């Protein structure tokens, strides 16, 4: 059976941050080649992975994304010479941080997909979607957001004490 036609209980929300020169073009190629992949992904286009601020990833998780994909040109192929190298370094550090705050790193994928790799785009998107589907919804940040709302008031003596001490 075609994976598209299968019904699932949980449809994860996947956000993809891609560069315009390689991965966006690769995703276009998947389209012109009429390849098929799960409809869960929403693509945001950037000039270069170098432009992608880790804050965007946090923001995406906060907005209810269950998985985030960051994809750009292969190392050495950056349209802007070296943007993807800077991105790679930045995200290597960022992953550690995410791990530290307790986000399952399986929800965050990095890949290199060139303009010629429509098939790889399909593979990467399908893999991440299925992986995240198996992991279930992302609850960590949603809970945090909720907590954020009601903890606005200082309603315990301990908190008041801590607040005064600052």
């Amino acid at each position, binding site marked *: 059976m075609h994976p598209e036609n299968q019904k699932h209980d949980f449809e994860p929300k996947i956000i993809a941050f891609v560069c315009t020169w390689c991965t966006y073009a690769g995703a276009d190629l998947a389209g012109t080649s009429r390849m098929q992949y799960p409809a869960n992904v929403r693509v945001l286009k950037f000039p270069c992975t170098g432009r992608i601020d880790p804050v965007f990833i946090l923001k995406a998780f906060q907005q209810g994304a269950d998985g985030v994909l960051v994809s750009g040109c292969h190392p050495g192929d950056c349209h802007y010479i070296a943007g993807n190298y800077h991105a790679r370094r930045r995200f290597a550090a960022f992953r550690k941080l995410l791990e530290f705050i307790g986000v399952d790193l399986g929800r965050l994928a990095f890949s290199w997909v060139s303009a*010629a790799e429509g098939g790889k785009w399909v593979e990467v998107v399908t893999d991440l979607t299925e992986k995240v589907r198996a992991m279930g919804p992302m609850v960590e940040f949603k809970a945090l957001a909720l907590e954020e709302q009601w903890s606005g008031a200082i309603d315990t003596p301990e908190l008041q004490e801590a607040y005064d001490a600052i």
Partner: protein
Amino acid sequence: MSRIGVFICHCGENISRTVDVERVAQEVGRLPGVAFSTDYKYMCSDPGQTLVKKAIQEQKLSHVVVAACSPRMHEKTFRKAVEAAGLNPFLCEMANIREHCSWVHENREEATVKAIDIVGMMVERVKKNRILPTITVPVTKRALVIGGGIAGIQAALDIADCGHEVILVEREPSIGGHMAQLSETFPTLDCSQCIMTPKMVDVANHPKIKLYTYSEIELVEGYIGNFQVTIKKKARSVDEDKCTGCGVCMTKCPQKKIPNKFDQNIGMRTAIYVPFPQAVPNTPVIDRDNCTWFKTGKCGVCQKVCGPGAIDFEQQDTLIVEAVGAIVVSTGFDLYTIAEKPKGSPIKGYGEFGHGKIPDVIDGMTFERLASASGPTGGKILRPSDGKEPKQIVFIQCVGSRAREKGISYCSKVCCMYTAKHTMLYHHKVHDGQAYVFFMDARTPGKSYDEFWRRSIEEEEAVYIRGMVSRLYQKGDKIVVMGSDISVGVQVEIEADMVVLATAIQPQKGADALAQKLGISYDKYHFYSEAHAKLRPVECATAGIYLAGACQGPKDIPETVSQASAAAAKVMALFSRNQMEREPIVARVREAGCVGCFACKKVCAYGAVEEKEIRDRQGNLIKVVAYVNPGVCAGCGTCQATCPSKSVELDGYTDEQIIAMIEAL
């Protein structure tokens, strides 16, 4: 409050087949800020564009979102239309619901929901778009051509004939490229040298062409209209101004047994050499790896015999910077080799054909040198192993090409024709010999091409065998060819005297490294990518850089020449203007927030970030901040993601815009 207009395209049925476009228009129409929303069969058509323009005027729209194909396809089209209606073009965005939605999903419900999301994202984004003024830059009317084969020569001559200066850079000591190596050319069998060398001389004599041979591109900076190119001129060890090209040095050089690459290593040359007699320039080069002087410090015969005193052992590599407005890349091809490949290379050699260790198994280019009147055998077909004339010769097509097992799946396009030519040349030269060709199918589209192939069979008596060869091995002084004839359905064995392999055409070695210097993209084989396969076949996606010849994909001579002239025409169109507009996607610094840490400067690959002093009225220095030169900035945005105080912003991709999109989900 913004008044956004949303235009949903059916793209014939390409989108509407899987996406319920009417529902998308309805739902998006309800979003805050959307004043108008509609769908239409072909939004990019003239009536479609008119619809957009009319809506902008009648509905007093402030922003536009067109939901259709990829922005890579039609963003320019719609931004132009929006501009014509009086809006700033950067207030128009495209939502890609074709390549990223209707074409990749089958389920109508899912695709429609996704399309609504995509359009919704773009609606939120466009609200935050700002008016961006176009940036104009001056155009330097000089062109750089990289690679001096027939493609580069043609492009250089065309541009120069139009009155513009051209800088032609060639890696080898002479221009001419592979075409200079060929014996005769299909389908007319005219001699390659006879048609090639006059053009080479034209290049040398053209007042508008500056020729750098034995030189390579070191660095490319800048952008369309304003490139700075650093060229490394390798030490020739011969002063080009003094040398008269008399050639005495070469006759006296004691090192005479160096395999000549131009002759596919079957002919020999001296250590001081020109690759072939008709070389342009006719100035020799000293091959320092093989020269006795450079190896031992003794000899110097060439220096002693050189009348004008042109030999200069002390010469160094020099770097030259040239300013150009456009670049034509014409670096050509290289031949696949059946030899074992180094570990890590995706391309495998042919162990079943002996990994290049059977001496009389040669490639097509080597056969060209054997057949060439100016080649190492004077045009006689002789075996490299023992110099005997082969009486049974086997040609094998598609070696490397169309072999995904070896790492190459494309067709090399020219082999069918040149092998047919080889059988003819062989038949003309060895009257009592027999040529056999193992092939899968003959690909001969082109004017007079199929007739040429048929002639090789019907008149020149080549025996074509439909089927591939499994293995070649040496048995005595014969080469056993284990093949099959699939038309008959039997195995075929031929004891051949010589085997010629039509090996695949690949991009030049180092094509990827050059592409990285130029900032142009290439495919997995390292062929350079054109901006659009059909409509922009000679332009790179990087503005101001054009492609000609086999560096973009396998091509024969007529096609290469056509593309070279086309690339030249593109360059001339660019040079017809004094100023040109460029996309205003550049970074800007918010000076109030900048603390002058210059992290942005460190990550900028273009050197676009400068230091700017801010002084008070008395002239006292307040602080030093970053400044982005909009002429140099390429718009990658790495600086913005790096800036710790969020004081630099990339126009068109601001944090505000991105966050708006994420929040729309």
